[in-house]
């Protein structure tokens, strides 16, 4: 639980004393004539103005200075520094910010409530400055506050106070990172989120696969299953702390629901044959999945409250990997009804489907962006696996990364970053990577061991 309050901008030192005007009748007349002259002159001035269109730009990471946050008491210094370091790492990893080396700082921030010396920060080419303080309260809670400054304009852009339990200090850092990201980029952040994935240990022939969860930056890894069964395709609920996944226990693979807070697990329906590739609807009330029917599979949706099952496709083909559009009105899925696996889009209630992928090779694991603007996919062609995106009408396809084996894309909550897993082959195992939807800023996410099949949660707050 995190409480939030807004921090107002501290009083700026007044640069000019306020002047009071004594207006005589003559003064009023002269002011009036000056205003009239201004009105007369203005059109000519406007005619003389230069009008210039700027249609190109120099898009690059924004230089930002993040000095160590201050500790309210000497005992809080370590936590305060940890918070500022996490913020620095988050913003740097996003690829949109270039944190400045603290060794270059000219001003040492001693008071968060004072206006910084902006010329000092302009000198080191900082465009934004984030200052903050972390204080342990008398009631045992942690108070974290930060201010974001526009160095060039000399203004405060944002200021917040947060109250939480001390063990939540990492989340506070992620929440502050999101606030800075949103204020400077205009988009929601994605740092206060988690990733569920398959942790893989042991030799390739006896690989132990466990369901695991971690913060989006790779910290706080927790294991959700013991590894005595094979688990695959975990997916986060968009609205609750639940995960759905497929597990091979005894018998056929089954789709399960797992509450990550309570550890409670339940099987989703009891069907003859395999059930696989589950995914939640945007409202979290339904789970769409594939059911085996002989040598084919079709897509079904189950209402989690009534447990009612509805068929969405009926084809003599393998239809699988369904994913909802963010408004819940449409579904994209993979089908080999045309010969090779390709991506199709249809209404969420079923009916006729429209093929949207027409490139070479086969397309699989489609996933709709939370923004609705792209569908990410895995494409297999000429012995290589690539991660790509296309618009929901199939246009604008572009490959973000290609190699021996890349698979399983999942979108960050803001739809700007995609996580996937890459297996280099040989004796090595898979690991997790992120890349932005423009195909830039590829980064490896550190995990305790091999990792695959990531699924990004929605924002926690």
């Amino acid at each position, binding site marked *: 639980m995190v409480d939030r309050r807004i921090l107002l901008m501290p009083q700026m030192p007044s640069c000019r004393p306020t002047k009071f005007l004594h207006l005589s009748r003559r003064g009023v007349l002269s002011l009036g004539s000056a205003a009239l002259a201004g009105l007369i002159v203005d059109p000519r*001035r*406007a*005619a*003389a*103005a*230069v*009008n*210039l*269109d*700027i*249609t*190109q*730009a*120099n*898009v*690059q990471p*924004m230089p930002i200075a993040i000095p160590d946050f201050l500790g309210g008491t000497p005992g809080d210094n370590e936590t305060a520094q940890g918070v500022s370091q996490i913020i620095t790492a988050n913003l740097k990893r996003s690829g*949109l910010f270039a944190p400045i080396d603290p060794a270059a700082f000219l001003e040492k921030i001693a008071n968060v409530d004072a206006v910084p010396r902006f010329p000092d920060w302009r000198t080191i080419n900082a*465009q934004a400055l984030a200052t903050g303080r972390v204080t342990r309260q008398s009631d045992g809670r942690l108070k974290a506050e930060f201010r974001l400054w*526009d160095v*060039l*304009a000399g203004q405060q*852009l944002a200021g917040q106070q947060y109250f939480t339990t001390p063990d939540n200090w990492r989340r506070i850092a992620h929440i502050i990172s999101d606030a800075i990201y*949103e*204020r*400077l*980029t*205009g*988009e929601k952040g994605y740092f206060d989120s988690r990733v569920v994935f398959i942790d893989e240990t042991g030799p390739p022939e006896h690989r132990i696969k466990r369901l695991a969860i971690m913060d989006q930056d790779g910290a706080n890894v927790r294991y959700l299953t013991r590894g005595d069964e094979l688990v695959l395709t975990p997916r986060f609920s968009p609205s609750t702390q639940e995960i759905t996944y497929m597990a091979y226990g005894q018998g056929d693979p089954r789709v399960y629901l797992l509450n990550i807070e309570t550890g409670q697990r339940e099987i989703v329906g009891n069907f003859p044959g395999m059930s696989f590739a589950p995914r939640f609807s945007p409202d979290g009330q339904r789970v769409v999945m594939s059911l085996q029917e002989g040598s084919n599979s079709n897509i079904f949706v189950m209402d989690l409250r009534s447990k009612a099952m509805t068929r969405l496709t009926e084809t003599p083909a393998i239809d699988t990997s369904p994913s909802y559009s963010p408004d819940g009105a449409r579904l994209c899925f993979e089908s080999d009804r045309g010969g090779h696996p390709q991506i199709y889009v249809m209404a969420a209630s079923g009916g006729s489907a429209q093929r949207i992928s027409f490139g070479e090779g086969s397309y699989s694991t489609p996933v709709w962006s939370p*923004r609705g*603007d792209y569908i990410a996919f895995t494409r297999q062609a000429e012995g290589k696996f690539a991660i790509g995106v296309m618009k929901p009408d199939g246009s604008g396809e572009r490959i973000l990364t290609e190699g021996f084996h890349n698979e399983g894309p999942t979108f960050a909550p803001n739809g*700007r970053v995609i996580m996937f897993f890459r297996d280099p082959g040989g004796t090595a195992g898979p690991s997790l990577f992120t890349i932005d939807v*423009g195909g830039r800023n590829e980064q490896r996410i550190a995990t305790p061991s091999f990792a695959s099949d990531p699924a990004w949660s929605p924002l926690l707050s």
Partner: protein
Amino acid sequence: MKRSLAISGIAHVVVLGWGLVAFAARPNDAPQAEPLPVEFVSATEFSQLTAGVKNAPKVLDDAKPLADKVGDPKPVKQLAPKVADKPEITTDSAAHESKPESKPEKSEKQKDAKAKPDQIADALKKDEAKKPPKPEKKPPEFKPDQIAEQLKRDEAKKPPSKFDANQVAALLDHRDPQRQLATAETLNGSVNLGAQGGHAAQLSQSELDALRAKLISLWNPPPAVSSNPDQYIVTVHIRLTRDHRLDGQPEVLSNGEGPLFEATRGSAVRAVLQAQPYDMLSQSTYDLWKDITLTFNPREVFGG
């Protein structure tokens, strides 16, 4: 009768008057393009301006004979010791047969002088004595002074030069300009080059390009505008002082809502603030750049 005539007359006048107004050919007002100052130079004038003049006085005064060193005779003595080292040849025939063809002519003659005299050698000696002591194959002696004197003589014969590169100023048109500005209480600072609007004067293209280039290098819009760039066009009005700095805060003229518009507006204002000083604009055109309106349009930034 008179009354109906008057009514008819008035009606005709009204109809004809209305027709004159209604059917008058309206001028086809094409949008007035702002003219650029251009000066015409004909091909002949261009050739004359760029052509060199051979008898330009200064060039001739400074000219030095380039053939000085080429014409220096080489000292003959240098070859003599090598020839003297060779063994003496006793017979006439042997002397002729053993003479290497590739040896310089001078050394042959020295050998001949040491061998027994014969008639051909004597004849050669006589011829040689008449000639100046230098090898026949060397270039003829160059006498720069003679050439220079000849050129001076030629120059004296020619009429004086019509074009002197050092006196270009004298060729300029010193007549007073005849163009008259429109009368007004205050003179218009802008030069009217025929435009009806009277605001044809502009900053030079290089100044505008430099200003644009600087703002482009500093504008860093948020990438999220790429999905709908037309909604995030930001117009900023700035006033500049004579020392090329902002006079007050930039004034954002565009309206918009939401965090993405706020971020885009912030990026445009940061670019404008960071571009100070605007020293790419010259003092002489201050009246033209003291007010600038900048439109930051992200449509083409992300591959539009």
